[in-house]
């Protein structure tokens, strides 16, 4: 009876871990929830059932392999991928099983044995899962990288269990209760950690959205200002015309020129720095560059993009983060210089941002970090940029020469169907 309880709980945890593995390999998927529950549930029932009834190795192996294979089938249609994922997950499973049971008992096929070892086994699988996640996430440069300290939780649990079994300090019942308790606390800690990190990323998204709204309201303000001025000019048009006509009659060329220049200056909106016609990108750039113009001496902007660029949301995140960093760094220098060059050529969006900087770069773990105080935030910013660049198969290059810091990147904007 006790064995059955442990068996069910360890099996549940194991299936939860298999699901985590799937998410590592294939990413989170929201659709087809029903199908997912059906497959995982079915796997759980059949697996537990056959295990409890037969206690036979070959039935277990087949049941596990087929089950995991079916689960993988939910995510991918490629047979090669399926075989790889199924086998590697099963290998981890069987390896952990062996490590956790063989030192303690002599296993004979067909015999049942106390299931406490299964607890150690799932905890081992859990550790493996954490490490796989860490390795794969690191390769993909995503944040949300689990801390190694999280892996300490199952390691400690295993240690405690082994010790209890080894010194025979507890009755079998006690052992069972402790095992179940450990599994539950492991699961809860892990889940809480996940919830925490998802809240954090949500918070970050909210921040980005707020920034966007601010950009928009700024842009609308600019447009209204422009409109006002045109209205005022139109209102005074008659007056201007007669003024100009008089000057022309007197052949006062210089004065006419001056007058027209004044009119131009009047109509020009000093706050509207870029006007590519792409509302989303214009609003972001105007907002950022407005600040740049106020605080810096030299701001050069060259922009050659069509008024409709695809993926402008992502492009904006890139520009926003890079410009913020660039302006921040340029303010601290004497030259106070910023050059922005954005163009679309041959289906490739090309962005170059250069700023003067105080020639000290710290090489952080994940590339370059600035010397600014909010280093943490900075890291997130650049990381986000890198993530988006990689999403479009692009590439980013950071370099510096003679107090000029330069970020260059390309994104592939179009798709070619073969």
């Amino acid at each position, binding site marked *: 009876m006790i064995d059955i309880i442990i068996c069910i709980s360890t099996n549940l945890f194991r299936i939860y871990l298999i699901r985590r593995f799937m998410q590592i390999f294939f990413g989170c998927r929201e659709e087809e929830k029903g199908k997912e529950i059906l497959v995982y549930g079915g796997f759980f029932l059949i697996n537990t059932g056959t295990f409890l009834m037969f206690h036979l190795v070959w039935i277990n192996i087949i049941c596990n392999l087929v089950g995991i294979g079916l689960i993988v089938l939910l995510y991918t249609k490629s047979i090669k991928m399926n075989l790889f994922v199924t086998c590697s997950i099963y290998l981890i499973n069987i390896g952990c099983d062996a490590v956790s049971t063989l030192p303690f008992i002599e296993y004979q096929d067909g015999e049942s044995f106390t299931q406490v070892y299964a607890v150690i086994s799932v905890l081992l699988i859990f550790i493996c899962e954490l490490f796989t996640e860490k390795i794969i996430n690191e390769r993909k440069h995503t944040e949300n990288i689990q801390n190694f300290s999280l892996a300490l939780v199952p390691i400690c649990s295993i240690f405690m269990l082994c010790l209890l079994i080894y010194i025979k300090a507890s009755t079998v019942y006690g052992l069972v209760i402790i095992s179940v308790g450990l599994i539950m606390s492991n699961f809860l800690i892990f889940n809480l950690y996940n919830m925490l990190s998802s809240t954090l990323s949500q918070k970050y998204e909210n921040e980005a959205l707020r920034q966007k709204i601010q950009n928009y309201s700024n842009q609308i303000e600019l447009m209204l200002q422009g409109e006002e001025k045109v209205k005022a000019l139109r209102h005074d048009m008659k007056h201007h015309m007669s003024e100009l006509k008089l000057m022309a009659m007197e052949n006062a060329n210089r004065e006419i020129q001056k007058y027209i220049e004044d009119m131009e200056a009047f109509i020009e909106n000093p706050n509207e720095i870029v006007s590519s016609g792409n509302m989303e990108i214009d609003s972001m750039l105007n907002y950022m560059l407005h600040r740049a113009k106020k605080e810096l001496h030299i701001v050069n902007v060259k922009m050659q993009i069509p008024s409709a660029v695809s993926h402008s949301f992502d492009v904006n995140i890139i520009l926003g983060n890079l410009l913020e960093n660039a302006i921040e760094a340029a303010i601290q220098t004497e030259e106070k210089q910023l050059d922005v060059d954005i163009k679309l050529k041959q289906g490739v969006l*090309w962005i170059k941002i250069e700023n003067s900087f105080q020639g000290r770069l710290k090489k952080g773990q994940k590339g370059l970090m600035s010397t600014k105080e909010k280093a943490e935030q900075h890291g997130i910013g650049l990381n986000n940029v890198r993530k988006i660049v990689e999403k479009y198969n692009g590439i980013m290059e950071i370099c510096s020469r003679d107090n000029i810091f330069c970020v260059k990147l*390309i994104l592939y904007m179009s798709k070619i169907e073969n």
Partner: protein
Amino acid sequence: MYNIGICDDGRKICSFIENMILLYMKEREIQADTKVWYTGEGLCSYLRQGNHIDILFLDIELIELTGIEVGDFIRNQLENREMQIVYISGKAAYAQQLFKTQPMDFLVKPITQLQINEVMDLAVKIIGKKSETFEFKNGKEHYYISYGEILYFVSEGRKIKIITPREEKEFYGKIRELEKNLPGEFITIHQSYIINKEYVTRYTYEMVELVNGTILTISKANRKQVREKILREG
């Protein structure tokens, strides 16, 4: 000797640009012939008669036929890919279609001498590169073809084919050997393709599309390298 065209509905602007170009040519001691049109129609009929222009300064907001239509006419009806088109306009907002006509650059009015100098420098450099010739042997005879005419090279067995907009030629050779002797605007995207970057309309990470509509695959081994080249030479 360069043939330079200027097309803008503003007469003053035209002569302004013309003067700046003439000044540039005088400073660099380059021979050039400039022609001016005030309408897109005039320019188009001049080109239709088979006349040749190397560098064209084209206003986007012309009266009847717009700059976009003229650009489209040059690239798609005349199938002229060699002409260097520089769009000029009053505002920096550009329509999507403009980017499909492979413009060399955009200038926003008022245009300065410095901008004209930069644009002309680049255009002269590109045209200069295009007129250099590639030499190959077929049998006992030597052939010459200017790099500017070559869309791409493709290897087929022991032969290499040269693909130009008009014809195909072939010679015996290896892509690996050929690659070493080509100028910088040629990049190897596959063990059997070397393309001329000037004639690419679209890049993706996996493929390139050329001006004549040909789509070629960038092999997995070359993708990173090609991407870096695009980044460097943007």
